[in-house]
């Protein structure tokens, strides 16, 4: 076997001397391979990467018997020596390309800075090298882009610039920490293809850190699964995904939503609950001294659909397509421009003030970010009871308390939760509280705005199960807004695909996922990474690299 590029032995990291984040792990990375570290949030995978480069926060302490790069023990290096290794031999790209780039420097300057850190080139040579790098990461029109600022680029382009900066020192090992998590699925596919092709052309090793098993299966040669700071299983990719040994890995694989699951939905027709007809929502663009309206951003541009009682319509689209605006303006949280909305035969458009407030009981919303959707200074009991107080003032305090208790029970939380603050709960538990809050006013329809995209895969599966159970028990309808097609297959009865403010394709879930008509839908579906080595005969619609 070849000599390992990076070998880490018995690495432990703890915070404030008592909170163990990484617990005695060992692994090796060979030259030229793709090694993936998989785990849910909080499992310590990012900290592992940072501790190799000794970039840990001040309150962390690190112990290891050795961390060696090409047989060179990094633990013995001084901070100054490490600076010569960071970026030159090991490079790092982060999840969020917006906050990793300096907003007041052009991207050309930022790439040049990284080059000059390691190679004393003349000014014109540096410029030449910057161009080469930007070409290498396939940034369109690199000549012009060199003078652009980060905000002038799209998310995918920014991530390409980050990769260019990481490649500037010609590293032997590139650490990619969730490189595509904040990107749309079609962009994600492009970035992954790019990383793979750069790796093949330069022969560097790639250390991929991700929570997404399907993505890892398409990219990695070897995979290590991390749980609570420990590596529970390390195996060749093919072996791991076809016959996982550790129960935790199996649990993760089972929790993965699959495109197949839509085949067992019932197709029985029910009367429509929500009818939306020719709905528009424009944002005015104001300019000049008197703030004259000079034009409109057509966030939602003539959308019509209907949702049947007790069923789920999934609204799919990439970021910026107007799906969240549509959800919020249906609830009148954002004023709509024109169009009609009817729920259970009652027209909602044009309602104002007290009349609108009364109709609020019909429709509720669950937001994406469980951290910002609850007032941090209110007790959970008060948060859940808020809607009852506002919309059912006739319910007295004793009964209200009883209802809150029942709601918490329904969403699977202990009674004692009512007297705690939201921050004491995990992301999944918070999302349960948000669902309880929405259920409190007994709505007929809940708009779920990406309720699972901030959650880990096993928690995501639980929340989806909870939503399905609630639908079965109470006959609630959902408008499920998401960008994740696998989740759509799990929960939806019907799917509407949104693109630039318009619905371009609409139909039953099987029809849209397996017989897509529109070119954009096809592109979207083909970009979804699916498990590569699966022993059951799954339809392989996804991208295989």
């Amino acid at each position, binding site marked *: 076997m070849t000599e390992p590029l990076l070998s880490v032995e018995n690495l432990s990291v703890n915070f404030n001397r008592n909170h163990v984040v990484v617990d005695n792990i060992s692994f090796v990375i060979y030259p030229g391979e793709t090694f993936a570290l998989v785990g849910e949030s909080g499992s310590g995978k990012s900290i592992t990467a940072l501790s190799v480069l000794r970039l840990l926060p001040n309150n962390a302490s690190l112990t290891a018997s050795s961390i060696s790069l090409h047989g060179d023990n990094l633990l013995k290096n001084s901070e100054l020596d490490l600076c010569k290794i960071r970026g030159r031999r090991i490079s790092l790209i982060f999840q969020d390309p917006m906050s990793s780039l300096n907003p007041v420097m052009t991207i050309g300057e930022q790439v040049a800075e990284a080059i000059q850190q390691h190679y004393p080139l003349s000014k014109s040579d540096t410029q030449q090298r910057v161009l080469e790098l930007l070409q290498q990461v396939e940034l369109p029109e690199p000549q012009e882009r060199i003078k652009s600022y980060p905000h002038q680029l799209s998310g995918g382009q920014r991530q390409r610039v980050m990769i260019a900066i990481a490649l500037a020192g010609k590293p032997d090992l590139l650490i990619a920490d969730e490189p595509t998590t904040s990107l749309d699925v079609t962009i994600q596919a492009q970035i992954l293809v790019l990383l793979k092709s750069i790796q093949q052309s330069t022969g560097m090793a790639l250390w991929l850190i991700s929570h997404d098993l399907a993505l890892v299966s398409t990219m990695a040669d070897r995979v290590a699964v991390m749980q609570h700071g420990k590596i529970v299983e390390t195996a060749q990719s093919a072996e791991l995904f076809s016959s996982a040994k550790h129960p935790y890995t199996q649990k993760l694989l089972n929790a993965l939503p699959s495109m197949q699951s839509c085949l067992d939905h019932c197709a029985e027709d029910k009367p429509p609950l929500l009818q939306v007809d020719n709905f528009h929502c424009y944002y005015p663009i104001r300019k000049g001294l008197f703030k004259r309206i000079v034009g409109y951003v057509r966030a939602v541009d003539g959308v019509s659909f209907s949702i049947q009682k007790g069923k789920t319509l999934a609204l799919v689209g990439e970021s910026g397509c107007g799906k969240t605006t549509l959800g919020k303006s249906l609830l009148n949280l954002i004023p709509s421009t024109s169009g009609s909305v009817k729920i259970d035969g009652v027209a909602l458009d044009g309602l104002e003030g007290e009349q609108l407030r009364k109709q609020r009981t019909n429709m509720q*919303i669950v937001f994406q970010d469980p951290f910002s959707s609850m007032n941090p200074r*209110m007790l959970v009991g008060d948060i859940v009871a808020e809607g009852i107080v506002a919309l059912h003032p006739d319910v007295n305090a004793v009964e209200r308390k009883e209802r809150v208790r029942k709601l918490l029970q329904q969403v699977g939380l202990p009674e004692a939760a009512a007297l705690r603050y939201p921050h004491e709960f995990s992301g999944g538990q918070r999302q349960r509280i948000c669902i309880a809050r929405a259920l409190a006013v007994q709505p007929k329809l809940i708009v779920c705005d990406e309720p699972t995209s901030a959650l880990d895969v096993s928690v995501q599966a639980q929340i989806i199960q909870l939503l399905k159970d609630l639908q079965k028990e109470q006959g609630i309808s959902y408008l499920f807004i998401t960008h994740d097609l696998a989740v759509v297959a799990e929960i939806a009865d019907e799917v509407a695909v949104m693109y630039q403010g318009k619905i371009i394709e609409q139909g039953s879930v099987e029809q849209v996922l397996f017989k897509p008509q529109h070119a954009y839908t096809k592109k979207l579906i083909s970009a979804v990474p699916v498990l590569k080595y699966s022993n059951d005969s799954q339809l392989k619609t996804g991208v295989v690299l």
Partner: protein
Amino acid sequence: MTLLWTDALILLLLLSSVSIAFYLHDKEHIQRPLNKIARSKVGMVSLVVLLFFLLVGLLDSIHFNANQEKNNEIISLLDYFATPLREHTEKTYSAPFATTLYSKEMIANVGTIQWDYPRLVYGGKHLVNPEKEQLPDVLLKAGFGFLMGLALFTAWMLLSAGVSYLKQGSAPKFFAMRPVMSTLFIIIVISTVLGYLSLYYHVLGTDKVGEDVFYQAIKSIRTGLVIGTLTTLIMLPMAILFGILAGFFRGWVDDVIQYLYTTLNSIPSVLLIAASVLMVQVYMANHESEFTSVIVRADIRLLFLCMILGVTSWTGLCRLLRAETLKLREMEYVQAAQALGVKQHAILLRHILPNVMHIVLISVVLDFSSLVLAEAVLSYINIGVDPTTYSWGNMINGARLEMAREPIVWWSLSAAFVFMFALVLAANLFADVVQDAFDPRSAGNESVG
């Protein structure tokens, strides 16, 4: 008993804080942060120091008519306790613990005239030969004061131990007891030592007209507290109301409020303050019959100073709150509340207000110190508190002129500085602890069970 305007307001403030404390004392989710404050060493120590200042301020806020025949003289309880200090006035400057004046004078001595430092009227008058006797005497008296403090502290400890024994040891265990006790011990000992010594010496010297500086510094505590708290009380409602309304409703409400505070901000506040103080003076001069004594006039002037400072200083906080509210109104929990049909005023009270309180708390404490300083600056141009009112500002202003003197007269300035520093530091540290305790997101605030 005579009730001055500021006395009444201070009592009102005290009553309302006691009733708020009583209302909150059995609310479980309020108990949690309070317990955290009780466990914090820094918090409890600074609270003890603050309470001591408050006690002095309160003693100084209970006024009564001391001597009916003698020219309608109104004094406070503190003046009553510190009567020897109040009446021990020398001719002019003398250094701390000095037995002579600070400058040489012609002394007429049986037949001869000498150019020498004259002996003080009160400071160290019991000493026959000051050069030899002074140091042992000071040490002896300090030792006696220390013993008195020790005795007082022990008596208090025995008393509290007895009470808690009778109550079957129900004293809360989480209390940061030892630092509180040591602070208390230090405060008691310092006050008894200084108190006992000041019967015989001027422990912090005397000022230009021979008044005891220690007495001035103690009397200034009330002025500092009044300016800090009353001004804040006047400014807070305006800042919070306008800031939140502007940020939440935007549109024309925002335009009007922004116009208001930009206009107010563009008028130099010194001008406004000068104008209003002069107005009050003219009013008092025209209605002499209503303001019979010096202290009543000084009090009205202090009150007006607080008001006008409040009116001119709300804009900064208002702007901060507007910006924060603009951010908060886009938060998803506010939208969720809208979707739940919660009324606008309830959203403001329940979702916006509690989430901007940390800004209010921090800026109030920072303002508190800057207001005490502003008072000093205003005294300098003669539009601050009445010259007869004791205040750190007036002390600094008086001492300012002597800074160039050689040897320097340092004690007025240092005394004002030390007292101001202790108060402002204690307030800052305490506010820090309170803010930390009431932020549910900070570490260690998890409920048990």
